[in-house]
Each structure stands twice: as C-alpha cells, then as structure tokens.
C-alpha cells in the first residue's frame, strides 16, 4: 500500500532528507519547504520506505505538488 506525500503549501524545498530506498518512521521529517520566511517541515505520514522522490532541494513547488511516495 502506498501513500503520496504532497506539498502542503507553495514554496522552495530547502531540505530533503530522503531518497528512494530510505526507510522512515511515522512523523520523521522528510523535507522542509520555505515560504514567507518560515520553514514548514513535512513529516512521514506512516512507517515505510520511500519508493519515489519527484523533486530535489532548491526546487520550487506549488501547493499539492507530488513530492514523494512512501510504501
């Protein structure tokens, strides 16, 4: 069963901690989006393995853009 990790808001990815194959725990920080001078972390919604990462550090994202898939 897979779950998509979407950008919660528009901004710039300033930190990306995972790549395909990374094992994560629920609530672990996956990436950080900077917008309006604040850094918004995005956390793993569940335990699992990252199977796809669609973006990289420095990329601009729009709200609801697909960032990664966790399985």
């Amino acid at each position, binding site marked *: 069963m897979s779950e998509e990790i979407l950008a919660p808001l528009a901004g710039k990815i300033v930190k990306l901690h995972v790549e395909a194959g990374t094992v994560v*725990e*629920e*609530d*672990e920080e996956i990436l950080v989006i900077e*917008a*309006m*001078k604040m850094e*918004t*972390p995005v*956390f793993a919604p569940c335990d699992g393995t990252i199977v796809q990462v669609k973006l990289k550090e420095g990329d601009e994202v729009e709200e609801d853009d697909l960032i990664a898939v966790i399985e």
Partner: protein
Amino acid sequence: MRPYFTTMDPLGRELKKGEIKRTQVNLEAVLAAEEEILGAVETVRNAGFSTEKINARGQMTVWQRLDYLVDEGTWCPLHTLYNPCDNPEQTTNVIDGIGRISGRWAVVIGFDNKVMAGAWLPGQSENILRVTDLAKRLNIPLVWLVNCSGAKLPDQEKFYANRRGAGTPFFRHAELNQMGIPVLAGIYGTNPAGGGYQSISPTVLFAHKDCNIAVGGAGIVSGMAPQGGFNVEMAEALVDRARDHTAKPPGSVRVHYDETGFFKYVFDEEEGVLDGLKEYMKAIPAYDPKFFRVAEAADSPFSPDDIPRLLPMDQKSVYSFDQVLARLVDGGEHMEFRKEYGPEVYTGLCKVDGFLVACIGNRQGYLGKGYPEYADYPGIGGKLYRQGLIKMNEFVTLCGRDRIPIIWFQDTSGIDVGDEAEKAELLGLGQSLIYSIQQTDLPMMLAVLRKGSAAAHYVLGGPTANRHNAFTLGTVASEIYVMHGETAAVATYARRLVKEKEAGNDLQPVVDKMNDLAQSYHEKSRPLFCARTGLVDELVAMTDLRKYMKAFAGSAYQNPKSICPLHQMILPRIIKG
C-alpha cells in the same frame, strides 16, 4: 455554570515517537541555553559580600530572608537580571518577585544587603516602579525587606532626581496606600536619607532591634558647610566627628519605637521581623480560592518537559502552539473562541489552578488555502491578518465584560504589510486592539515564547500596555526587536547601495555596514539582553511557565477589584453557541 467548566474540550495530544526523536536536538539546545541563564542568575546571587561574611555579622542575607519569608515552592522571581544602566555590581540592588506569604500572594522586594549595604544604584528606581505597578495591577500587598544604606554617592546624578528617580517610589507607596493596598516593611540595618524614606513610606513598620531610620545618617550629620575644598586639617576634624556619630547613628529603635512610635513592632531576632510580617499577611484581605475557582485545580495530563521539545530555538521553524498550551493549562482542556475564524490566532478560555483565564497566542505554520482572504499570497502563522485582529478585539472586549484575566503568548513577526493589507484595514485594526485592551481593566501577563516583533509586540498585550500588563516573561528562545536585523539592514541601506552602484563605487563597504547592523540587532535582541534592559521582566525555564501562570491567576483572583458572577458571563455562552 458547572457544565461549562468542570470538563472542557480536550486540547493537545501525547508526543509521537517520531516527534520525540526529531526534537531531541532542540531539547538539548534549550537546556544548554537555560544553563547559561542560570549562570547569569548565580552571578547576581553572589554579588557583593559572601553569605558567610554577612552571617558572621549576625545578619541574614536578603536571599535568606526571602527564603524564610515566602511559602515554600511559591517564589516566582522577577527582574533578577535587570540591570539597565549596566552597573558593575551586576544588579539594581533590589531582589523582587511574587510569592505567597502565609498562604496569600504578595509582591515582595528587598534590598541586597550584600552589595554596599543595600545602596541605591542606577536603574533601581525603575525596578522598584515595576514592582509597585505590579502590586497596583494585581491589587495585592507589597512587602518590603528594607536594608538600604542610601545613595551610592559617586553615581547620584544617574538616579537621584528626575521624574522616575529614586524618590518616585515613595509617591507610589503613597498611591498604593491611598488605593487600599498595604505596604508592609521589615526593616534591618542602617537606613539613612533615602533609606529612611524607604522605611517610613510603607504602611506598617516591623523593625529589627539594631536598625535605624533617619532623614540623614552619620555621614551627613558629621559633614560641614562647603569651604571650596579639603585639607588634612579638615580631614582630621572629620575623623573625630564621624567616629562620634558612627557610635550613635540617628533614628535608632530607642527614638523610633520609644519616642515617635513609627515602628509598630520591634524584634530581637532577624527571623522575628519576618515572623511578624507573616502574621500580618494572615490578616490581609484575600478570598478563599474556592470563591472564584470554576473547577478543582488540576495539572495538565501532558508533561511540561515536552515544552522544550515543542518550542523551537530556530526562529524559522514552525510548531504547534496548541500543543504548548495543552501543557500549561489544567487538564489540557479549553473552550476555543471562534475556532474557524482568524486561524493565525488562538483565543480561548482555559483553567489555571482551577481559575478561569483567557489565553491568546500566535499559531504557527501555513494557514491553509485562501487565507488571508484579501490577498493572493499564503498566510503564515506568527503574522497577524484581518480576521485574527478582529477576533482578538472581540475576545478581549468580552473578557473585559466578564472580568476574565488574560494570558498572552507572543511569537509574532508582525502584522501583515502591503497595499492589500492596508485595504484590509490592518493598521486600524491593530490600533483597535490597543483600544480594546485599554477599554478593559483586566490584569494581563505575557509570555514571549519566541519572537516579539514590530507593532504586533505592542498590540498583543505587550509591556507597552502599562496599565494592564502585570509582567512579561521571556524564554531562551525569545527575541524582541522592531524587525529582523537583516530586514533593518535592507531598509537602512538599500538606497545607499543604489547610489554607490550608480556612482560606480565598490559595494563592499556598505555591505560591511549592513552585516554590522544585522549583527548588532542579533546581539541586542538576545534573551539576556532583553532581561538586562527590561524588555522582559524575567527569563524563565520553559518548564516554569505554568508556575508563573499559577502565581498570576492566584494573585489576580486573590482580591479582585471587580467581578462577574459566573452565571452572568456571556463569553462561555457565545463559545458554546
């Protein structure tokens, strides 16, 4: 009204394992920074003579007197690091705070007799005025431990005169008396001149047998008319006269107990003076807490030790204010006012030690699609927008109507700016909130959890609300400035950069100035700077925030000047709908 308050809505949740893991670094940073603050506090505690030396003279130190006087576990120190004139003694030479004496809340202040026998120092009168303001705001007694040798004469021009100089507290004591707020004074040591007025201006005087109070001390009595200078012959004469007067200091117990009767009581032992104060505190007007409690006092179900994990030291990190608040209020319960409106601000009713309080705080992070409704950019918590400002205006006004004390929590980068924000009336709404606060007569306290910035620091119950803000707390994450240092550097030097560029000049010298300004802002907004200059009244460990909230709530409800019967409150009904 029992159904409203006995059990309120649940707030917060336990930390998840991932949160515990990723907040470990922040926890360690907070604890290390709090250690640094404790080091600064120790420096103040150790200022002047050692405890051993004072004890060898048969005296207790001010710290020992406070420890004996105040009920165990209730002392909430204030202004410990306050030193606005940068005195080399590291202190304004008064030690103060809120604590219970014989079960009743009081503001307590004492001269540090280890430092120049409790002399007046620069910045001290400002410190005392904060304390008298506090007693006035909370309508609780002021208890003095007087032991004041008078002015530090070489520095007199820095504090003796002026509108808020060393004599102003005597007028404040008169004001408190006229308002029916008693000022009790335990008096020790030699208290000439200024020390004499420190002693005589309170309501009831409890004297130690060896103390004296006088218009002028031995030093003044033995003086002589100015003769244009000094010579050795005059110095010899001074020695003889000073010896004589030192042996017989004016204003002893023999004069002011036996003759004038200014001293109501005299005690042979130092502890006896404090016991006398304790006895009188039992007779101070104070409601039994059950009179105003809306529920049994209860701790939060969540650990306060979570707060240093939840509140980031990193100024750019977002966090859940609700999670912090859940660890500060009874039962982790609340009644939130207008939850769906103005999402950048929390407004709600909570219980602290069983007393009803109103809490207002900045929420953090992304505020969701379409907010603020007047702009096409995303709303981020910490900023104030139209709805949040309107909501706080409503909430504060209703709290004033229902006589509910307010606890503010700031972590704000300011009010939204730009033409869209102007069209949304934010300038007017900010001032409206100031008007709403001023319209009430409520005690308020503020905790600057992290950022206090721009006009938002004023409008969110900041210390600028002189008549309302009882005290302001900071944490090791606090920063207070008009704007971020780099923003200030841009505002200051942007046009200069343009000029230099157009003139074909090297930009580096201007860049250096910009970096210097940003660095200066950083240094002058740090927690220790805020405490030394009085931007906050005390830096507290994050785990101690609730202790101060309990002291505030207990004091505010001890003898309130105005009350609203619970069953006539309207705010809880508006929340319930």
